[in-house]
């Protein structure tokens, strides 16, 4: 099991943070384009899921998987979106994504008055804490699958 990469978006589609661990193949387009593509897809899939839902939705879109990877999605009512790509062996990780939001993003970025909101996070502390948290996850393994 392994973690490939992580995106953090705000409500306006700005990519607040991106980091990657075991990503062997790049998308082959500039990072800016990739973020836009990712956000656009999330935006569409979200509205698609809510339109198609036969019942009133609770949490909405949670994850999708392909033959090679799984994309996990978590969104707060304020529109902060945490997206993590892992391999297929990883189960539901809502609590992990919630932890990244509540214990890392809110504590280290939102509560830091010197960190402007709505643009790429510059905080070195946030980066390093996030990195060590992800590395400490039980399904994070150096032997990339």
């Amino acid at each position: 099991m392994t973690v490939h990469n992580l995106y953090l978006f705000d409500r306006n589609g700005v990519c607040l943070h991106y980091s990657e661990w075991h990503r062997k193949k790049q998308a082959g387009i500039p990072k800016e384009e990739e973020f836009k593509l990712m956000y656009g897809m999330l935006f569409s899939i979200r509205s698609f899921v809510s339109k198609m839902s036969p019942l009133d939705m609770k949490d909405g879109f949670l994850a999708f998987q392909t033959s090679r990877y799984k994309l996990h999605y978590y969104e707060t009512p304020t529109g902060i979106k945490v997206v993590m790509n892992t391999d297929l062996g990883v189960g539901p990780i809502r609590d992990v994504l919630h932890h990244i939001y509540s214990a890392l993003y809110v504590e280290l970025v939102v509560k830091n008055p010197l960190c402007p909101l709505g643009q790429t996070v510059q905080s070195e502390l946030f980066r390093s804490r996030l990195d060590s948290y992800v590395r400490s996850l039980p399904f994070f393994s150096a032997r990339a699958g």
Partner: protein
Amino acid sequence: MSRQANRGTESKKMSSELFTLTYGALVTQLCKDYENDEDVNKQLDKILFFCFLPRGYNIGVRLIEDFLARSNVGKCHDFRETADVIAKVAFKMYLGITPSITNWSPAGDEFSLILENNPLVDFVELPDNHSSLIYSNLLCGVLRGALEMVQMAVEAKFIQDTLKGDGVTEIRMRFIRRIEDNLPAGEE
């Protein structure tokens, strides 16, 4: 912002008196910095994007994230539910009080929060030359900023204030509209 109770095992508490006095210091400094009460009211409520000490609105914009991270409250379905969450969860968490919700407008888009006692004004008496100062106007900015982040445009204003001789403190909230999510410009 104030009491930081309920944070799992590491529950931190802060003296409410210290908080009240700190708020008083902020208002006093603003009164010194600005000529008249209207400007102070505006500053307490307003958007100051380039200010390192965010007040009102800016506090709300950030406080809502802390609130969501700690409270596990999900999306509200209507304005009544929002009112309940504000009064029973948010005010309780940050100010240690639970205002009552009354005076719903027939259309259900306006309500009042009645604060029996307002911890911000524990030691306050308005001097005569500041008769039009809305001392706790910061709260309106916080409410406005926080709700805007969960896609609700509201108007919040004080209509009764114990400092002005009224029996209770009353904040009137009015729902203006839902802010829709838009795809950022330049994407198809």
